[in-house]
C-alpha cells in the first residue's frame, strides 16, 4: 500500500507499524515527532500504531530558525 511520508508517496507493506516505517526510512531515533493524519502520535505509541492506505505521516525535527 501507499502512505504519504513528509509529502512523498511511499510503498510499504500492509502491516507496517509506525515504528517500522520510521526505522526503515532511516529517521534518527531521538529529536523527532510524528503526526499521522494531523494528530500527534506519542513515541510510546509508535510500536502499536498501524498505518492505513494513504495515511499521511509527518515527521518533524528541530532545525535552525527563529
Amino acid at each position: 500500500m501507499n502512505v504519504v511520508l513528509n509529502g512523498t508517496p511511499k510503498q510499504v507493506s500492509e502491516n507496517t507499524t509506525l515504528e517500522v516505517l520510521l526505522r526503515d526510512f532511516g529517521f534518527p531515533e531521538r529529536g523527532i515527532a510524528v503526526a499521522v493524519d494531523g494528530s500527534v502520535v506519542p513515541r510510546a505509541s509508535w510500536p502499536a500504531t498501524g498505518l492505513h492506505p494513504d495515511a499521511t505521516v509527518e515527521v518533524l525535527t528541530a532545525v535552525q530558525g527563529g
Partner: protein
Amino acid sequence: MDDPLIIAGREFGSRLITGTGGAANLAVLERALIASGTELTTVAMRRADAGGGTGVLELLRRLGIEALPNTAGCRTAAEAVLTAQLAREALGTNWVKLEVVADEDTLLPDPVELLDAAEQLVDRGFVVLAYTNDDPVLALKLEETGCAAVMPLGSPIGTGLGIRNPHNIEMIVSRASVPIVLDAGIGTASDAALAMELGCDAVLLATAVTRAQDPERMAAAMRAAVEAGRLARQAGRIPQRFWAQASSPGRPIG
C-alpha cells in the same frame, strides 16, 4: 544570579534570548551563541530528512543552552497548536515561542489566530511565550490568557528597523505583570539597549547577529547592549530638559 530573568518560575542569568536562524553554518552559530552569553535559544520545527541528523539540537545540548521551539511558518491557530505539540514530543519541553503570522510580506502576527492559539496552548499545559504586535491591548489580552511572557515586535522580522513605536513598548511594559521580551526588528546594539531602557525584561534577536558581517562580534555587542540598557533602566535616567543646565557651579570670574 544577581538580576535574573524569571519566566514561569525559571531563572536565566542572561536577558538575551537568541534565535538560530540565518547563520551560515553551525560553526559560525556556535561562536555567536557563546559570545552572546544566551541561555535560551529558539529553534524551528520542520520536516525531518530521512537519514538526517539533528545538528542544531546537539549543538545546543553541548553548549548547555535551552532550546525554545517556535511555531514559525504557521498561519493558523490549528497549525500552531499541532506544531507546538510536535515540538513538545520531539524536544521534551512544554515551552513554546508562539508565532502565527498573517502573510509573507509583513510576517506580522495575525492577532485573531494568535489569541486563539494562545488560549488552546495554555489550556493544554504549555508555557507560552507569545510573539505579538506592538499593540498594548493585544499584549494585555495575551497576558490575561495565561501567556508566561509577551513578546512585542520592534519592527517586522528581519528588517533591522529597530523599535518603530517606543511609546507602545513603554505602554505594554507599564502595565504588564509577566516578562516583556522585545522580539524582532533589532538591527544593531543601540536598538537592544533601547528596548531594555524602555523597560523590557529581555530581548530576543536572531538576524541582527546571524547575518551580521561578523556574527561573533555582533553577539558580543548585543550582550553588552542588553546589560547596559538594563543597568540604565534600573539607574533611572535624568529627565529631558528644553534648556541647558550647567553641571559646574556659577562662573569662575565676576
